[in-house]
């Protein structure tokens, strides 16, 4: 197991180098000069532009810029934004917010999705199953910004149950509504996934054996059916967590969450290369770690899976 983890971590290094290179290249290749854009409709003096280019290393050839950036990262220096804030500070401020939001969202979708999926699967074809199907189909087909705006309007403005946007510091109670919105889409997926998996497991031999041993349904459902049905669901949840961690740009924008997605979006719009690349680097890192954890989880959940030394 340890050997496997070590090998995976080693593999992560070229992946990380490759992705930062690609992202850096893409930001570099973006048409338009961010320095000129700083001046708005005003045409800046070439001399001033030259000074600013030098300050942000933008006057260097691409490959030099990239290695300067990479060297900085190894020294823990992620560069500074145009507003003079170290990018590492921005990272430290935004990732915890997004983490809280992601944990909340995954919690909501897990609890609701698995419960409803389990009940649907056990009572296949019943009224509950049919209504769950309709609701989840509707949720899957709605774009997230529609759900977000409707939820904000109804629960934030009309009923006043939640704050319309997230106040500074992003306290948990403000994050509940955006988390529910984020959870809705995956919730529908998890419901469908759990249901199918439960139905499948329910017809397996070991379930029948357990029943013929005289075990009560009360014991069979959680221990034998649910546990074995969860493998695909856990994979999905973990991947979804990874997706949420790298930022829900649209939802964060609508609810003004000072998280990763909103900040990254703003940095892209302003052409702030160092901020964009640093964010993406951390995102790639998170994604790699979560992927590794998912693979390890498999082995825990399903004893048939073993990783070679």
């Amino acid at each position: 197991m340890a050997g496997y983890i070590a090998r995976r971590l080693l593999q992560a290094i070229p992946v990380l180098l490759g992705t930062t290179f690609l992202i850096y290249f893409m930001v570099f290749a973006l048409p338009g000069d961010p320095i000129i854009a700083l001046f708005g409709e005003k045409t800046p003096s070439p001399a001033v532009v030259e000074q600013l280019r030098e300050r942000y290393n933008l006057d260097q050839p691409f490959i030099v810029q990239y290695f300067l950036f990479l060297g900085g990262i190894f020294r823990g220096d992620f560069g500074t934004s145009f507003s003079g804030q170290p990018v590492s500070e921005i990272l430290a401020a935004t990732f915890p917010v997004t983490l809280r939001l992601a944990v909340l969202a995954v919690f909501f979708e897990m609890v609701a999705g698995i419960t409803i999926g389990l009940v649907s699967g056990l009572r296949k074809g019943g009224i509950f199953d049919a209504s769950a199907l309709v609701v989840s189909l509707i949720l899957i087909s709605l774009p997230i910004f529609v759900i977000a705006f409707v939820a904000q309007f109804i629960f934030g403005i009309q009923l006043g149950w939640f704050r319309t946007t997230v106040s500074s510091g992003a306290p948990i109670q403000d994050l509940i509504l955006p988390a529910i919105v984020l959870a809705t889409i995956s919730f529908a997926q998890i419901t469908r996934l759990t249901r199918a998996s439960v139905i499948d497991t329910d017809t397996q031999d070991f379930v029948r054996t357990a029943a013929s041993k005289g075990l009560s349904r009360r014991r069979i459902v959680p221990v034998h059916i649910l546990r074995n049905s969860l493998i695909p669901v856990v994979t999905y949840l973990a991947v979804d967590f990874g997706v949420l961690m790298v930022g829900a740009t649209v939802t964060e924008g609508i609810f003004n969450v000072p998280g990763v997605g909103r900040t990254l979006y703003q940095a892209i719009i302003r052409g702030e290369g160092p901020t964009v690349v640093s964010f993406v680097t951390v995102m790639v890192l998170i994604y790699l770690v979560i992927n590794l954890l998912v693979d390890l989880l498999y082995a825990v959940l399903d004893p048939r899976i073993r990783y070679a030394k």
Partner: protein
Amino acid sequence: MKIKRIGVGAIALAAAGALTLAGCSSSNEPAAEGDSTAVISVNNTEPQNPLIPTNTNEVGGGLVLQNIFAGLVYYDAEGAAHNDVAESIETDDAQTYTITIREGLTFTNGDPVDAESFVTAWNYGAALDNAQLSSYFFEPIEGFTYDENVDELSGLEVVDDLTFTVTLKQPESDFPLRLGYTAYFPLPASAWDDLEAFGENPVGNGPYMMDGEGAWQHNERIDVVKNEDYDGPREAQNGGIDMILYASTDAAYADLQGGNLDILQDVPDSALETFETEFEGRSVNQPGAANATITIPERLEHFSGEEGKLRRAAISHAIDREEVTDVIFNGTRSPAFDFTSPVIDGYSEDIPGSDVLEFDPELAKELWAEADAISPWSGTFELAYNADGPNQGWVDAVANQLKNNLEIEAAGAPVPTFAELRTSVTEETITTPFRTGWQADYPSLYNFLGPLYGTGAGSNDGKYSNPEFDALLEEGAAATEVEAGIEKFQQAQEILFEDLPVIPLWYTNGLGAWGEQVDNVEFGWDTWPILNQVTKSE
């Protein structure tokens, strides 16, 4: 130039409402509640640069600086300049100014506001090595150059503690008018110890001050509180301002609806149709000191010389400005009658030649045919715009009008980002006409004309040049009487109507709305709410 970036990075959407609004109490009446200690909240965007006056040229940082600093002069809602820190600004020839500062003023850290605090800040802003975004504001001062770094401008001289003189390269009668702009604010002596740290926690001399270290919580909020020691005309009528930083105006609008925000400056596109009814008596929609134009450089094929003049006039006549501002913008733009803006002193709707802006498809066709006689038109008329701003709607509408009224092929030419559009305009690589716009830095006709159409001027995107225009501009700038200056500037506009270096489209309106809990809300000529006079019931 103030750049506003909200959501999609739209530019120069900001505009002003200079007239007093129906339904909001006039600023002349004493506030009903008396001095209030309540803190008001207003939406803002994350400042793009450190909070240093000479390096702030966009609204996110500008709103903060305008409230925590006091300049030599300040502008009232109508855009008239009054002395603030200045005791007097005197000149005999519009070229050498003697500026005297009121006695006994201090920054919030106790440093005195003196001649030195202005001169040092200006010298820093002008020096090439410091590459300040607003350095061009010091261009007119003697000694300024882009060729080499100059630490001390020869045109700035400290006479005594409270007096300094400014010598300009040439007479500019509206120089005192400019002094309320952010770039001309003073800096305390302590700023020079560590300017980087200062940009994060600026110390000013205005009606408000930062609410302690770290009051700028990046991407979240900036809190300022009343400066009890402020002695000047803009004393705060409230306890402070929470500037909530939003990435999208939609979210800010939702917060206003939900009662979590007191004052909204700017209104999202999604609410343009409804905000005036939803916030009846508590909204503003008035022309501001900003306009939108189409620039068609002379260097483009078919647009030079006499043929170009005819074609530009034809295009101008072929655009139904009324229809576009009503249908596409829901009345949040006002059709243009000149090259400046209605909130500027000296504005006139009847400048000779301005009838070229009237919608007249018949005349448009005639002029176009005349131009065809010189050299027949072929191809498509393309109008470039940045697709990351709210431009596609009106560009398509204008293209359709040209198509129908001139019977030519016309289409919008989207450029993905504002940065890309500006780069190709600046480097003159753009091969089509393009959209342009201008938001005034300070309320003066000259600011709408000099930087845009003067030969070799900084923002002369079309590289327009007409010696006659330059001469009138210079005469206007040198006039020591305001009225005489205005007359020259209006004559200069007559030449512009003849040549049409750009085709004026409309004035951008200042939009905003506020909640029932606040009173005395008024938006200034520059589209910004005048926050120090707002009162709030607790």
